[in-house]
Protein backbone atom coordinates (compact mmCIF):
# COMPACT_ATOMS: atom_id res chain seq x y z
CA UNK A 1 0.00 0.00 0.00
CA UNK A 2 3.01 2.28 0.29
CA UNK A 3 3.67 4.41 -2.73
CA UNK A 4 7.22 5.05 -3.83
CA UNK A 5 6.78 8.73 -4.62
CA UNK A 6 8.81 10.98 -2.26
CA UNK A 7 6.59 13.23 -0.18
CA UNK A 8 9.53 15.26 1.04
CA UNK A 9 12.83 15.70 -0.70
CA UNK A 10 15.78 17.73 0.56
CA UNK A 11 18.42 18.60 -1.96
CA UNK A 12 21.79 19.66 -0.55
CA UNK A 13 20.12 21.81 2.09
CA UNK A 14 22.29 24.27 4.03
CA UNK A 15 21.21 26.45 6.87
CA UNK A 16 23.60 29.03 8.21
CA UNK A 17 22.84 31.19 11.24
CA UNK A 18 24.64 34.46 11.66
CA UNK A 19 25.77 35.02 15.22
CA UNK A 20 27.25 38.51 15.27
CA UNK A 21 30.25 38.36 12.95
CA UNK A 22 30.44 34.59 12.71
CA UNK A 23 28.48 32.28 10.46
CA UNK A 24 27.39 29.15 12.26
CA UNK A 25 26.32 26.35 9.95
CA UNK A 26 23.53 24.26 11.43
CA UNK A 27 22.97 22.13 8.36
CA UNK A 28 25.82 21.44 6.07
CA UNK A 29 24.40 20.02 2.88
CA UNK A 30 21.71 17.52 3.77
CA UNK A 31 20.05 15.47 1.09
CA UNK A 32 17.16 13.26 2.10
CA UNK A 33 14.15 11.61 0.49
CA UNK A 34 11.15 10.65 2.53
CA UNK A 35 8.58 8.53 0.76
CA UNK A 36 4.90 8.60 1.38
CA UNK A 37 3.83 6.25 4.18
CA UNK A 38 7.28 5.96 5.72
CA UNK A 39 7.97 6.01 9.45
CA UNK A 40 11.36 7.55 9.97
CA UNK A 41 13.27 8.77 12.98
CA UNK A 42 15.75 11.61 12.76
CA UNK A 43 18.27 11.08 15.51
CA UNK A 44 21.35 12.72 16.77
CA UNK A 45 22.89 14.33 19.84
CA UNK A 46 21.82 17.81 20.84
CA UNK A 47 23.45 20.47 18.72
CA UNK A 48 23.67 18.05 15.80
CA UNK A 49 21.25 20.07 13.70
CA UNK A 50 18.28 17.76 14.00
CA UNK A 51 15.97 20.52 15.25
CA UNK A 52 16.98 22.70 12.33
CA UNK A 53 16.34 19.80 10.01
CA UNK A 54 12.93 19.30 11.56
CA UNK A 55 12.12 22.97 11.00
CA UNK A 56 13.07 22.61 7.35
CA UNK A 57 11.06 19.44 6.87
CA UNK A 58 8.13 20.99 8.70
CA UNK A 59 8.18 24.12 6.53
CA UNK A 60 8.72 26.23 9.64
CA UNK A 61 11.84 27.73 8.11
CA UNK A 62 13.48 28.02 4.73
CA UNK A 63 17.04 26.91 3.91
CA UNK A 64 19.89 29.31 3.23
CA UNK A 65 20.89 27.17 0.29
CA UNK A 66 19.51 24.11 -1.45
CA UNK A 67 15.99 23.08 -2.27
CA UNK A 68 13.16 21.42 -0.42
CA UNK A 69 10.29 19.78 -2.25
CA UNK A 70 7.04 18.98 -0.52
CA UNK A 71 4.78 16.80 -2.61
CA UNK A 72 6.82 17.80 -5.66
CA UNK A 73 6.57 21.51 -4.99
CA UNK A 74 9.60 23.67 -4.26
CA UNK A 75 8.99 25.38 -0.95
CA UNK A 76 12.47 26.74 -0.30
CA UNK A 77 11.69 30.20 -1.61
CA UNK A 78 8.10 30.51 -0.42
CA UNK A 79 6.76 33.37 1.68
CA UNK A 80 5.84 32.83 5.30
CA UNK A 81 2.11 32.97 4.56
CA UNK A 82 2.46 30.49 1.73
CA UNK A 83 4.40 28.16 4.03
CA UNK A 84 1.72 28.57 6.71
CA UNK A 85 -0.96 27.48 4.30
CA UNK A 86 1.04 24.37 3.28
CA UNK A 87 1.95 23.53 6.87
CA UNK A 88 -1.65 23.77 7.95
CA UNK A 89 -2.83 21.44 5.20
CA UNK A 90 -0.04 18.91 4.73
CA UNK A 91 1.78 18.65 8.03
CA UNK A 92 0.55 17.83 11.51
CA UNK A 93 2.82 18.78 14.40
CA UNK A 94 3.28 16.94 17.67
CA UNK A 95 5.67 18.71 20.05
CA UNK A 96 7.65 17.62 23.06
CA UNK A 97 5.85 20.14 25.27
CA UNK A 98 2.43 19.36 23.75
CA UNK A 99 1.98 23.04 22.87
CA UNK A 100 -1.73 23.33 23.38
CA UNK A 101 -3.21 26.81 23.74
CA UNK A 102 -3.97 27.22 27.41
CA UNK A 103 -7.09 29.40 27.09
CA UNK A 104 -8.85 26.92 24.81
CA UNK A 105 -10.58 23.63 25.61
CA UNK A 106 -9.37 20.29 24.24
CA UNK A 107 -11.98 20.42 21.47
CA UNK A 108 -11.14 24.02 20.54
CA UNK A 109 -7.45 23.12 20.38
CA UNK A 110 -8.21 20.21 18.07
CA UNK A 111 -10.40 22.30 15.75
CA UNK A 112 -8.11 25.33 15.55
CA UNK A 113 -6.05 24.17 12.54
CA UNK A 114 -9.31 23.82 10.60
CA UNK A 115 -10.21 27.41 11.51
CA UNK A 116 -7.08 28.59 9.69
CA UNK A 117 -8.18 26.58 6.62
CA UNK A 118 -11.61 28.27 6.70
CA UNK A 119 -13.47 25.04 7.38
CA UNK A 120 -17.14 25.53 8.22
CA UNK A 121 -17.85 25.55 11.94
CA UNK A 122 -20.21 22.56 12.00
CA UNK A 123 -17.77 20.44 10.00
CA UNK A 124 -14.99 21.49 12.36
CA UNK A 125 -16.94 20.50 15.42
CA UNK A 126 -17.92 17.14 14.04
CA UNK A 127 -14.38 16.33 12.96
CA UNK A 128 -13.00 17.56 16.30
CA UNK A 129 -15.28 15.23 18.27
CA UNK A 130 -14.34 12.34 15.95
CA UNK A 131 -10.64 12.95 16.52
CA UNK A 132 -11.00 13.19 20.29
CA UNK A 133 -12.85 9.89 20.07
CA UNK A 134 -9.98 8.40 18.14
CA UNK A 135 -7.50 9.30 20.91
CA UNK A 136 -9.96 8.21 23.61
CA UNK A 137 -10.62 11.65 25.09
CA UNK A 138 -14.22 12.26 24.04
CA UNK A 139 -15.13 12.80 27.70
CA UNK A 140 -12.49 15.47 28.13
CA UNK A 141 -13.49 17.67 25.20
CA UNK A 142 -14.42 20.70 27.30
CA UNK A 143 -11.38 20.49 29.58
CA UNK A 144 -8.62 23.06 29.46
CA UNK A 145 -5.04 21.77 29.01
CA UNK A 146 -4.28 22.60 32.65
CA UNK A 147 -6.97 20.10 33.65
CA UNK A 148 -5.40 17.27 31.67
CA UNK A 149 -2.44 14.99 32.41
CA UNK A 150 0.67 15.12 30.23
CA UNK A 151 -0.33 11.96 28.37
CA UNK A 152 -3.81 13.30 27.78
CA UNK A 153 -2.42 16.60 26.53
CA UNK A 154 -0.19 14.78 24.08
CA UNK A 155 -3.17 12.79 22.83
CA UNK A 156 -5.08 16.05 22.28
CA UNK A 157 -2.03 17.29 20.38
CA UNK A 158 -2.06 14.16 18.21
CA UNK A 159 -5.77 14.68 17.55
CA UNK A 160 -4.99 18.28 16.60
CA UNK A 161 -2.20 17.20 14.26
CA UNK A 162 -4.75 15.11 12.34
CA UNK A 163 -7.33 17.89 12.01
CA UNK A 164 -6.69 18.77 8.36
CA UNK A 165 -5.92 15.19 7.29
CA UNK A 166 -2.24 15.93 6.67
CA UNK A 167 -0.06 13.48 4.79
CA UNK A 168 2.83 13.96 7.19
CA UNK A 169 2.92 13.84 10.99
CA UNK A 170 6.00 15.55 12.36
CA UNK A 171 6.70 14.58 15.95
CA UNK A 172 9.44 16.40 17.84
CA UNK A 173 10.49 14.32 20.86
CA UNK A 174 6.86 13.28 21.35
CA UNK A 175 7.61 11.27 24.48
CA UNK A 176 10.26 13.60 25.90
CA UNK A 177 8.05 15.01 28.65
CA UNK A 178 6.21 11.80 29.50
CA UNK A 179 6.89 8.84 31.78
CA UNK A 180 7.87 5.56 30.14
CA UNK A 181 4.43 3.96 30.17
CA UNK A 182 2.59 7.00 28.85
CA UNK A 183 5.34 7.46 26.30
CA UNK A 184 4.79 3.91 25.12
CA UNK A 185 1.04 4.60 24.69
CA UNK A 186 1.85 7.60 22.53
CA UNK A 187 4.23 5.51 20.41
CA UNK A 188 1.51 2.90 19.94
CA UNK A 189 -0.76 5.66 18.73
CA UNK A 190 1.83 6.97 16.24
CA UNK A 191 2.46 3.46 14.97
CA UNK A 192 -1.24 3.01 14.42
CA UNK A 193 -1.32 6.20 12.38
CA UNK A 194 1.59 4.86 10.35
CA UNK A 195 -0.32 1.63 9.74
CA UNK A 196 -3.26 3.73 8.57
CA UNK A 197 -1.00 5.18 5.87
CA UNK A 198 0.34 8.41 7.39
CA UNK A 199 3.93 9.43 6.87
CA UNK A 200 5.51 9.78 10.30
CA UNK A 201 8.69 11.75 10.82
CA UNK A 202 9.94 11.69 14.37
CA UNK A 203 12.82 13.62 15.84
CA UNK A 204 14.39 12.11 18.95
CA UNK A 205 17.62 11.54 20.74
CA UNK A 206 16.29 8.49 22.58
CA UNK A 207 17.30 5.21 20.87
CA UNK A 208 14.47 3.33 22.62
CA UNK A 209 11.96 5.63 20.97
CA UNK A 210 13.86 5.71 17.70
CA UNK A 211 13.73 1.96 17.28
CA UNK A 212 9.98 2.13 16.65
CA UNK A 213 10.73 3.78 13.31
CA UNK A 214 11.26 1.82 10.10
CA UNK A 215 14.19 3.97 9.08
CA UNK A 216 16.66 5.94 11.16
CA UNK A 217 18.50 8.98 9.85
CA UNK A 218 21.44 9.81 12.04
CA UNK A 219 22.66 13.34 11.91
CA UNK A 220 25.82 14.84 13.33
CA UNK A 221 27.42 18.25 12.85
CA UNK A 222 24.78 19.20 10.37
CA UNK A 223 25.32 16.22 8.12
CA UNK A 224 23.62 12.88 7.62
CA UNK A 225 26.05 10.26 8.87
CA UNK A 226 23.91 7.19 8.46
CA UNK A 227 20.62 6.40 6.83
CA UNK A 228 19.49 2.86 7.19
CA UNK A 229 16.36 0.76 7.26
CA UNK A 230 15.57 -1.63 10.07
Amino acid at each position, binding site marked *: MKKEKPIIELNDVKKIYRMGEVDVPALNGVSLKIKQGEFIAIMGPSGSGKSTLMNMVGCLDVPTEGKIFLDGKDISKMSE*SGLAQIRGKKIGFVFQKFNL*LSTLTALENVTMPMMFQNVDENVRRKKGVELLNLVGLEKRSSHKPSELSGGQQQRVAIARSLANDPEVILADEPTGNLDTKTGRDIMVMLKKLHNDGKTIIMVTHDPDVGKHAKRIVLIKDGMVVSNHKE
Partner: protein
Amino acid sequence: MISDYFSYAFKNLKHRKVRTWLTMIGIVIGIAAVVSIISLGQGLENMIIGQFEDMGADKITIMPGSSIFSAGMATIPLNQKDYDVIKRTRGIVNVAGMIYSSIRVEYKEESEYTFVIGMPLDPGSKRIFDSMQNFKLDYGRDLKDGDGNVIVVGSSVAKDDKIFERGVVLGSKITINGVDFKVIGVLETLGNEQDDRSVYINIERARDIFDNKDEFDVLFAQAKQGFDVSEVAEDLEKALRKSRDLKEGEEDFNVQTTEQLQESFGTIFSIVQWFLIGVASISIVVGGIGIMNTMYTSVLERTYDIGIMKAIGARNNDILTLFVIEAGTLGAVGGIIGVIVGGGFAKIIEIAAKNVLSVDLLKAHLSVELLVGAVLFSFIVGMASGALPAKQAASMKPVDALRYE
Protein backbone atom coordinates in the same frame (compact mmCIF):
# COMPACT_ATOMS: atom_id res chain seq x y z
CA MET B 1 -14.71 32.92 10.52
CA ILE B 2 -14.63 36.37 12.08
CA SER B 3 -16.82 35.10 14.94
CA ASP B 4 -14.07 32.62 15.83
CA TYR B 5 -11.64 35.49 16.21
CA PHE B 6 -14.09 37.30 18.49
CA SER B 7 -14.63 34.23 20.65
CA TYR B 8 -10.89 33.65 20.88
CA ALA B 9 -10.43 37.33 21.79
CA PHE B 10 -13.05 37.10 24.53
CA LYS B 11 -11.37 34.01 25.99
CA ASN B 12 -8.04 35.74 26.14
CA LEU B 13 -9.48 38.89 27.68
CA LYS B 14 -11.33 36.82 30.29
CA HIS B 15 -8.13 34.96 30.99
CA ARG B 16 -6.44 38.23 32.01
CA LYS B 17 -9.36 39.74 33.89
CA VAL B 18 -7.60 42.28 36.07
CA ARG B 19 -5.46 43.62 33.29
CA THR B 20 -8.45 43.78 30.96
CA TRP B 21 -10.46 45.85 33.43
CA LEU B 22 -7.59 48.18 34.19
CA THR B 23 -6.93 48.67 30.50
CA MET B 24 -10.55 49.50 29.79
CA ILE B 25 -10.86 52.21 32.46
CA GLY B 26 -9.37 54.89 30.22
CA ILE B 27 -11.80 54.18 27.40
CA VAL B 28 -14.72 53.89 29.84
CA ILE B 29 -14.02 57.32 31.31
CA GLY B 30 -13.46 58.93 27.93
CA ILE B 31 -16.57 57.49 26.30
CA ALA B 32 -18.69 58.18 29.41
CA ALA B 33 -17.56 61.81 29.39
CA VAL B 34 -18.23 62.25 25.67
CA VAL B 35 -21.65 60.58 25.85
CA SER B 36 -22.79 62.64 28.83
CA ILE B 37 -21.45 65.89 27.36
CA ILE B 38 -23.09 65.34 23.99
CA SER B 39 -26.42 64.15 25.38
CA LEU B 40 -26.65 66.93 27.95
CA GLY B 41 -25.37 69.54 25.50
CA GLN B 42 -27.97 68.46 22.99
CA GLY B 43 -30.61 68.51 25.73
CA LEU B 44 -29.59 72.00 26.83
CA GLU B 45 -29.62 73.23 23.26
CA ASN B 46 -33.07 71.74 22.68
CA MET B 47 -34.27 73.40 25.86
CA ILE B 48 -33.01 76.86 24.93
CA ILE B 49 -34.08 76.64 21.31
CA GLY B 50 -37.48 75.52 22.57
CA GLN B 51 -37.69 78.61 24.72
CA PHE B 52 -36.82 80.82 21.77
CA GLU B 53 -39.49 79.08 19.74
CA ASP B 54 -42.00 80.04 22.41
CA MET B 55 -41.12 83.65 21.69
CA GLY B 56 -42.49 83.35 18.17
CA ALA B 57 -40.69 83.91 14.89
CA ASP B 58 -42.02 87.47 14.49
CA LYS B 59 -40.10 88.84 17.49
CA ILE B 60 -37.05 91.02 17.31
CA THR B 61 -34.90 91.44 20.42
CA ILE B 62 -32.91 94.64 20.91
CA MET B 63 -30.27 94.70 23.62
CA PRO B 64 -27.55 97.15 24.62
CA GLY B 65 -23.97 96.06 23.84
CA SER B 66 -22.41 94.98 20.57
CA SER B 67 -23.44 91.34 20.92
CA ILE B 68 -25.84 89.29 22.98
CA PHE B 69 -22.86 87.90 24.83
CA SER B 70 -21.74 91.28 26.13
CA ALA B 71 -24.60 91.33 28.61
CA GLY B 72 -23.41 92.65 31.95
CA MET B 73 -20.53 94.65 30.49
CA ALA B 74 -20.53 98.40 30.64
CA THR B 75 -22.69 99.48 27.73
CA ILE B 76 -24.70 102.48 26.70
CA PRO B 77 -28.25 101.62 27.69
CA LEU B 78 -31.30 101.77 25.48
CA ASN B 79 -33.69 104.57 26.35
CA GLN B 80 -37.08 106.02 25.52
CA LYS B 81 -35.66 107.71 22.40
CA ASP B 82 -34.55 104.33 21.04
CA TYR B 83 -37.94 102.96 21.93
CA ASP B 84 -39.61 105.64 19.85
CA VAL B 85 -37.26 105.07 16.91
CA ILE B 86 -38.09 101.38 16.94
CA LYS B 87 -41.78 102.04 17.22
CA ARG B 88 -41.66 104.30 14.16
CA THR B 89 -39.76 101.77 12.03
CA ARG B 90 -41.70 100.41 9.07
CA GLY B 91 -43.05 96.93 9.69
CA ILE B 92 -43.09 97.14 13.47
CA VAL B 93 -46.46 96.68 15.11
CA ASN B 94 -45.54 96.80 18.79
CA VAL B 95 -42.57 97.45 21.06
CA ALA B 96 -42.22 96.45 24.68
CA GLY B 97 -39.38 97.35 27.02
CA MET B 98 -38.40 95.65 30.19
CA ILE B 99 -36.09 96.50 33.06
CA TYR B 100 -34.72 94.16 35.69
CA SER B 101 -32.31 94.13 38.54
CA SER B 102 -31.09 91.68 41.12
CA ILE B 103 -32.16 93.26 44.37
CA ARG B 104 -32.90 92.45 48.00
CA VAL B 105 -36.49 91.37 48.56
CA GLU B 106 -38.00 91.05 52.05
CA TYR B 107 -40.78 88.72 53.08
CA LYS B 108 -41.75 88.31 56.72
CA GLU B 109 -38.48 88.16 58.64
CA GLU B 110 -36.38 86.99 55.69
CA SER B 111 -34.57 88.90 53.01
CA GLU B 112 -33.11 87.37 49.85
CA TYR B 113 -31.65 88.56 46.56
CA THR B 114 -33.70 87.86 43.49
CA PHE B 115 -34.55 89.37 40.13
CA VAL B 116 -37.18 92.09 40.21
CA ILE B 117 -38.61 92.60 36.75
CA GLY B 118 -40.38 95.75 35.67
CA MET B 119 -43.06 94.82 33.14
CA PRO B 120 -44.67 97.28 30.75
CA LEU B 121 -48.43 97.03 31.19
CA ASP B 122 -49.85 99.17 28.36
CA PRO B 123 -52.04 97.01 26.07
CA GLY B 124 -49.58 97.06 23.14
CA SER B 125 -46.64 95.83 25.22
CA LYS B 126 -48.77 93.36 27.12
CA ARG B 127 -49.82 91.78 23.84
CA ILE B 128 -46.17 91.09 22.99
CA PHE B 129 -45.44 89.43 26.30
CA ASP B 130 -48.66 87.44 26.18
CA SER B 131 -47.86 86.17 22.69
CA MET B 132 -44.39 85.12 23.87
CA GLN B 133 -46.22 82.58 26.01
CA ASN B 134 -43.53 82.70 28.59
CA PHE B 135 -45.64 83.85 31.45
CA LYS B 136 -48.81 82.02 32.39
CA LEU B 137 -50.67 82.75 35.57
CA ASP B 138 -51.20 79.78 37.86
CA TYR B 139 -53.56 81.45 40.28
CA GLY B 140 -54.54 84.93 41.49
CA ARG B 141 -54.69 87.71 38.90
CA ASP B 142 -52.23 89.13 36.40
CA LEU B 143 -50.72 92.60 36.45
CA LYS B 144 -52.78 95.14 34.51
CA ASP B 145 -52.39 98.67 33.24
CA GLY B 146 -52.43 101.20 36.03
CA ASP B 147 -51.48 98.71 38.78
CA GLY B 148 -49.59 100.24 41.67
CA ASN B 149 -47.93 98.42 44.54
CA VAL B 150 -48.94 94.91 43.57
CA ILE B 151 -46.68 92.05 42.62
CA VAL B 152 -46.85 88.75 40.73
CA VAL B 153 -44.29 86.13 41.75
CA GLY B 154 -42.63 83.17 40.03
CA SER B 155 -43.60 79.69 41.18
CA SER B 156 -40.48 79.14 43.26
CA VAL B 157 -41.21 82.23 45.30
CA ALA B 158 -44.53 80.72 46.33
CA LYS B 159 -42.99 77.38 47.28
CA ASP B 160 -41.71 76.50 50.75
CA ASP B 161 -37.95 76.17 51.25
CA LYS B 162 -37.09 77.53 47.82
CA ILE B 163 -36.30 81.17 48.42
CA PHE B 164 -38.15 81.83 51.59
CA GLU B 165 -38.68 79.28 54.33
CA ARG B 166 -42.44 79.63 53.94
CA GLY B 167 -43.68 80.24 50.39
CA VAL B 168 -45.32 83.56 49.62
CA VAL B 169 -49.15 83.48 49.69
CA LEU B 170 -51.72 85.65 47.94
CA GLY B 171 -52.50 88.84 49.78
CA SER B 172 -49.28 88.84 51.78
CA LYS B 173 -46.72 91.64 51.77
CA ILE B 174 -43.34 91.74 50.04
CA THR B 175 -40.99 94.67 50.61
CA ILE B 176 -38.55 95.89 47.97
CA ASN B 177 -36.26 98.77 48.90
CA GLY B 178 -38.62 99.89 51.61
CA VAL B 179 -41.67 99.83 49.33
CA ASP B 180 -44.42 97.38 50.22
CA PHE B 181 -46.10 95.26 47.52
CA LYS B 182 -49.18 93.09 47.83
CA VAL B 183 -48.98 89.65 46.22
CA ILE B 184 -51.81 89.26 43.71
CA GLY B 185 -50.74 86.37 41.51
CA VAL B 186 -48.43 83.36 41.16
CA LEU B 187 -47.06 82.19 37.80
CA GLU B 188 -46.95 78.63 36.50
CA THR B 189 -43.59 76.90 36.70
CA LEU B 190 -41.58 77.82 33.63
CA GLY B 191 -38.87 75.21 34.18
CA ASN B 192 -36.19 77.86 34.13
CA GLU B 193 -34.97 78.59 37.61
CA GLN B 194 -34.07 82.22 37.02
CA ASP B 195 -37.55 83.09 35.76
CA ASP B 196 -39.25 81.01 38.43
CA ARG B 197 -37.37 82.84 41.18
CA SER B 198 -38.19 86.29 39.79
CA VAL B 199 -40.91 88.70 40.89
CA TYR B 200 -42.80 90.94 38.49
CA ILE B 201 -44.06 94.50 39.05
CA ASN B 202 -45.28 97.42 36.98
CA ILE B 203 -42.35 99.00 35.12
CA GLU B 204 -43.35 102.44 36.47
CA ARG B 205 -42.95 101.24 40.07
CA ALA B 206 -39.68 99.52 39.14
CA ARG B 207 -38.31 102.77 37.69
CA ASP B 208 -38.85 104.46 41.07
CA ILE B 209 -37.19 101.64 42.96
CA PHE B 210 -34.23 101.20 40.58
CA ASP B 211 -33.91 104.99 40.17
CA ASN B 212 -34.11 104.50 36.40
CA LYS B 213 -35.87 107.28 34.50
CA ASP B 214 -36.15 106.13 30.90
CA GLU B 215 -33.72 103.30 30.22
CA PHE B 216 -34.49 99.74 29.14
CA ASP B 217 -32.51 96.56 29.72
CA VAL B 218 -34.12 94.83 26.78
CA LEU B 219 -36.65 95.75 24.10
CA PHE B 220 -38.87 93.35 22.21
CA ALA B 221 -40.41 94.39 18.92
CA GLN B 222 -43.03 92.51 16.98
CA ALA B 223 -43.01 92.56 13.18
CA LYS B 224 -46.26 93.16 11.33
CA GLN B 225 -47.82 90.19 9.65
CA GLY B 226 -46.73 89.85 6.01
CA PHE B 227 -43.38 91.56 6.60
CA ASP B 228 -40.08 89.75 6.30
CA VAL B 229 -38.78 89.68 9.87
CA SER B 230 -35.11 89.84 8.95
CA GLU B 231 -35.69 92.81 6.61
CA VAL B 232 -37.59 94.61 9.33
CA ALA B 233 -34.74 93.86 11.73
CA GLU B 234 -32.26 95.35 9.24
CA ASP B 235 -34.34 98.51 8.82
CA LEU B 236 -34.61 98.75 12.56
CA GLU B 237 -30.86 98.46 12.99
CA LYS B 238 -30.34 101.16 10.35
CA ALA B 239 -32.79 103.50 12.06
CA LEU B 240 -31.17 102.99 15.45
CA ARG B 241 -27.72 103.58 13.97
CA LYS B 242 -28.90 106.84 12.45
CA SER B 243 -30.55 108.10 15.63
CA ARG B 244 -27.51 107.15 17.75
CA ASP B 245 -25.16 108.61 15.11
CA LEU B 246 -23.10 105.44 14.62
CA LYS B 247 -21.38 104.02 11.53
CA GLU B 248 -22.05 100.49 10.34
CA GLY B 249 -19.95 98.03 12.39
CA GLU B 250 -19.75 100.38 15.36
CA GLU B 251 -23.07 99.41 16.89
CA ASP B 252 -23.28 99.58 20.68
CA PHE B 253 -26.55 97.69 20.57
CA ASN B 254 -27.64 94.50 18.90
CA VAL B 255 -30.74 93.49 17.02
CA GLN B 256 -31.61 89.83 16.72
CA THR B 257 -34.56 88.01 15.29
CA THR B 258 -35.68 84.86 17.06
CA GLU B 259 -33.99 82.84 14.35
CA GLN B 260 -30.72 84.73 14.78
CA LEU B 261 -30.87 84.29 18.54
CA GLN B 262 -31.27 80.56 18.04
CA GLU B 263 -28.34 80.54 15.67
CA SER B 264 -26.14 82.59 17.99
CA PHE B 265 -26.83 80.27 20.88
CA GLY B 266 -26.44 77.27 18.63
CA THR B 267 -22.99 78.48 17.56
CA ILE B 268 -21.83 79.21 21.08
CA PHE B 269 -23.16 75.86 22.17
CA SER B 270 -21.34 73.88 19.57
CA ILE B 271 -18.10 75.72 20.35
CA VAL B 272 -18.39 74.95 24.05
CA GLN B 273 -19.50 71.42 23.33
CA TRP B 274 -16.65 70.70 20.94
CA PHE B 275 -14.21 72.14 23.43
CA LEU B 276 -15.52 69.81 26.14
CA ILE B 277 -15.50 66.86 23.76
CA GLY B 278 -11.90 67.74 22.96
CA VAL B 279 -11.02 67.59 26.63
CA ALA B 280 -12.85 64.28 27.04
CA SER B 281 -11.08 62.92 23.96
CA ILE B 282 -7.77 63.21 25.77
CA SER B 283 -9.01 60.45 28.01
CA ILE B 284 -9.91 58.35 24.99
CA VAL B 285 -6.43 58.88 23.54
CA VAL B 286 -4.87 57.88 26.86
CA GLY B 287 -7.19 54.87 26.89
CA GLY B 288 -6.03 53.94 23.41
CA ILE B 289 -2.40 54.14 24.49
CA GLY B 290 -3.31 51.91 27.43
CA ILE B 291 -4.73 49.35 25.03
CA MET B 292 -1.60 49.56 22.91
CA ASN B 293 0.59 48.99 25.94
CA THR B 294 -1.48 46.02 27.09
CA MET B 295 -1.44 44.52 23.61
CA TYR B 296 2.35 44.82 23.37
CA THR B 297 2.67 42.99 26.68
CA SER B 298 0.17 40.45 25.53
CA VAL B 299 1.97 39.82 22.25
CA LEU B 300 5.22 39.32 24.12
CA GLU B 301 3.59 36.96 26.60
CA ARG B 302 1.97 34.95 23.90
CA THR B 303 4.97 34.73 21.60
CA TYR B 304 5.06 30.99 22.12
CA ASP B 305 1.32 30.69 21.40
CA ILE B 306 1.84 32.68 18.21
CA GLY B 307 4.53 30.16 17.26
CA ILE B 308 2.13 27.28 17.88
CA MET B 309 -0.64 28.90 15.87
CA LYS B 310 1.74 29.58 13.00
CA ALA B 311 2.97 25.99 13.13
CA ILE B 312 -0.57 24.67 12.80
CA GLY B 313 -1.27 26.86 9.81
CA ALA B 314 -2.02 30.44 10.88
CA ARG B 315 -0.96 32.94 8.22
CA ASN B 316 0.44 36.35 9.14
CA ASN B 317 -2.93 37.87 8.36
CA ASP B 318 -4.71 35.46 10.70
CA ILE B 319 -2.46 36.48 13.57
CA LEU B 320 -2.85 40.15 12.67
CA THR B 321 -6.65 39.87 12.61
CA LEU B 322 -6.64 37.94 15.87
CA PHE B 323 -4.78 40.62 17.78
CA VAL B 324 -6.49 43.59 16.12
CA ILE B 325 -9.87 42.11 16.98
CA GLU B 326 -8.76 41.43 20.52
CA ALA B 327 -7.73 45.07 20.89
CA GLY B 328 -10.94 46.21 19.21
CA THR B 329 -12.99 44.08 21.58
CA LEU B 330 -11.14 45.62 24.50
CA GLY B 331 -12.12 49.05 23.16
CA ALA B 332 -15.71 48.11 22.36
CA VAL B 333 -16.41 46.54 25.76
CA GLY B 334 -14.93 49.67 27.37
CA GLY B 335 -17.16 51.70 25.05
CA ILE B 336 -20.30 49.79 26.03
CA ILE B 337 -19.57 50.30 29.72
CA GLY B 338 -18.72 53.94 28.99
CA VAL B 339 -22.04 54.45 27.20
CA ILE B 340 -23.93 52.95 30.15
CA VAL B 341 -22.01 55.04 32.68
CA GLY B 342 -22.22 58.23 30.58
CA GLY B 343 -25.91 57.76 29.78
CA GLY B 344 -26.67 57.05 33.42
CA PHE B 345 -24.73 60.10 34.49
CA ALA B 346 -26.62 62.29 32.02
CA LYS B 347 -29.94 60.94 33.34
CA ILE B 348 -28.84 61.63 36.92
CA ILE B 349 -28.00 65.21 35.94
CA GLU B 350 -31.40 65.50 34.30
CA ILE B 351 -33.15 64.29 37.44
CA ALA B 352 -30.96 66.45 39.65
CA ALA B 353 -31.74 69.49 37.48
CA LYS B 354 -35.42 68.78 37.94
CA ASN B 355 -35.37 68.16 41.68
CA VAL B 356 -32.61 70.40 42.92
CA LEU B 357 -32.65 73.27 40.44
CA SER B 358 -36.32 72.94 39.36
CA VAL B 359 -35.28 72.91 35.70
CA ASP B 360 -37.96 70.78 34.09
CA LEU B 361 -37.02 71.37 30.50
CA LEU B 362 -33.55 69.81 30.48
CA LYS B 363 -33.79 66.36 28.91
CA ALA B 364 -30.61 64.37 28.27
CA HIS B 365 -30.75 63.56 24.58
CA LEU B 366 -29.54 59.94 24.30
CA SER B 367 -30.03 59.15 20.63
CA VAL B 368 -29.39 55.71 19.17
CA GLU B 369 -26.87 57.30 16.81
CA LEU B 370 -24.90 58.65 19.76
CA LEU B 371 -24.86 55.37 21.67
CA VAL B 372 -24.07 53.12 18.71
CA GLY B 373 -21.60 55.66 17.37
CA ALA B 374 -19.76 55.79 20.69
CA VAL B 375 -19.39 52.00 20.88
CA LEU B 376 -18.32 51.81 17.24
CA PHE B 377 -15.82 54.59 17.80
CA SER B 378 -14.29 52.86 20.81
CA PHE B 379 -14.05 49.63 18.79
CA ILE B 380 -12.14 51.53 16.11
CA VAL B 381 -9.91 53.23 18.70
CA GLY B 382 -9.17 49.79 20.13
CA MET B 383 -8.36 48.31 16.73
CA ALA B 384 -6.16 51.25 15.80
CA SER B 385 -4.30 50.96 19.11
CA GLY B 386 -3.84 47.24 18.55
CA ALA B 387 -2.57 47.62 14.99
CA LEU B 388 1.13 48.04 15.78
CA PRO B 389 1.37 45.30 18.42
CA ALA B 390 -0.61 42.99 16.13
CA LYS B 391 1.76 43.73 13.28
CA GLN B 392 4.66 42.80 15.50
CA ALA B 393 2.93 39.54 16.40
CA ALA B 394 2.12 38.74 12.78
CA SER B 395 5.66 39.29 11.56
CA MET B 396 7.21 36.84 14.02
CA LYS B 397 8.95 33.89 12.46
CA PRO B 398 7.47 30.61 13.67
CA VAL B 399 10.87 29.09 14.51
CA ASP B 400 11.86 32.11 16.58
CA ALA B 401 8.49 32.26 18.31
CA LEU B 402 8.67 28.57 19.20
CA ARG B 403 12.15 29.03 20.64
CA TYR B 404 10.91 31.84 22.90
CA GLU B 405 10.43 30.90 26.54
